[in-house]
């Protein structure tokens, strides 16, 4: 390839490819835009500090405020502490088909959670609040293991999430909801597993879910990582 004609050809071909690449970029941006407006999808933006040393002395993450709360405006908020080597509380009750906001903190090291059968998945970094918005599409008992190695007791760090149909979700007058068979706050002597509990020994067999398996049991948006969140209200 030599001479001015050869060069012109090269320039033309470069332009064509540049246009093609530009078109791909624009299609991707258009998709991002579409998702942002219609599905409320966001890039990471939640920067919320929580001092790990004084977490247990702050109102929001004080023991008695942990767990599921229905706020006066009807929204469901779950607050949870991930600590070596347990989740507090270690069982959560949440309604199916309603918007649920999870707020996680850690007073010690990095932990992580995922709720089996859903796309709820986040790291919990000490110093920050990890927040996830989701809607559970199917009811049943799900397991929520810690998925970030956090020390010697990591493998026993598992919580349960009981997703109940919205009409069976009956929070108390204070707006709090607890798992069946779970005493809020202080555990009175209750050796062994209360009746009706999930046999956590079955965890190797995967999530314990009832009803028809759906390919999309929950869609989560996370303030820390973008994911899909269809705008569904109650």
């Amino acid at each position: 390839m030599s001479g001015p004609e050869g060069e012109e050809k090269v320039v033309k071909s470069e332009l064509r490819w540049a246009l093609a690449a530009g078109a791909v970029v624009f299609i991707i941006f258009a998709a991002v835009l579409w998702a942002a407006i219609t599905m409320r999808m966001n890039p990471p933006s939640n920067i919320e500090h929580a001092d790990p040393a004084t977490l247990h002395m702050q109102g929001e993450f004080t023991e008695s405020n942990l767990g599921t709360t229905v706020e006066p405006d009807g929204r469901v908020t779950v607050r949870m502490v991930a600590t070596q080597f347990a989740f507090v509380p270690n069982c959560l009750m949440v309604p199916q088909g309603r918007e649920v906001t999870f707020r996680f903190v850690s007073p010690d090291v990095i932990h992580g959670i995922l709720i089996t059968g859903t796309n709820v998945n986040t790291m919990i970094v000490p110093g920050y609040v990890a927040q996830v918005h989701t809607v559970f599409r199917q009811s049943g008992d799900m397991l929520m293991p810690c998925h970030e190695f956090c020390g010697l007791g990591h493998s026993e760090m598992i919580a349960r999430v009981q997703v109940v149909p919205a009409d069976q979700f009956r929070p108390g007058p204070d707006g709090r909801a607890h798992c069946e068979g779970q005493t809020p706050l202080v555990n009175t002597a209750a050796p062994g597993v209360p009746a009706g509990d999930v046999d956590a020994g079955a965890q190797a067999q995967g999530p314990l879910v009832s009803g028809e398996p759906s390919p999309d049991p929950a869609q989560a948006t996370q303030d820390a990582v973008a994911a899909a969140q269809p705008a569904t209200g109650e």
Partner: protein
Amino acid sequence: MASPDPHNTPETEAERRAGRLWARTAVMVVVGFVAVFGVLGFVIIPVAQGAQAGIDPWSAICRAVGVSPGSPAMRQPVSDTPAQPVSNVAWTPAILNTLSGADRATGQRLAQEVCSACHGESGVSPSPNFPHLAGQSAAAIYKQLHDYRSGARFNEQMTPVAEALSEQELAAIAAYYAEASDDLRLGTRNPLPDERLQRLVSEGDPSRGIPACNACHARGAGGPIETPMINGQHAAYLEAQLTAYANGGRRNDIYQRMRTISAALTEQERRELAAYYQGTR
């Protein structure tokens, strides 16, 4: 050899002008791109999302930029719950410094004057009614003394003792007892051999959500800093504490760590574990 080297041909004026044009166009494209998507990402999208969720435009922009917490597309939950700490000990750098710089000599004097009557010479307690303190970690002793003093943990004998001491004195005593005796050091004695308990102690029981005791209670295990050494401790004391955790009589463990675990154990297991950890002389 005959053709001239293309890199050495002098640039014509026209070529130079074309080059400048390219450079300018490229800069404009990049700047335009950043500007358009900056406005889209930080202004238009958050404002549009905020409008759907009932968030005012300015807050939506602040959230998108990351200066205020929350997502521009979701209302942020609020909580005005008053703090109800089960313990007022916070492991801030200031407290850790106080502990590491504490005056052992003062600690020793106070220990001999006040504590030795019950907890024995150098923290080795002859009576099972009083726990050993020798070799206990300074953080554990400090946390418990602080909790007795603040009322988070109550004991008729210990509470008045702790209430009479200052913060500095607590730290000094804690630092002294951590190194007090070579005779008995909590955390160094061998537990009783027992295969079944050994599993619970070193592997836990996933079916009941019980983590291995040694994930926290072994020296240097890496659990919470205030975790006390329990091997070598009097069995009667350990059992009493486990029972108190299980029935809510003692609730100064931050985030219910021990209350949850102890409530999942049977009464028999609590007794056996206490004896196991006391070990053999």
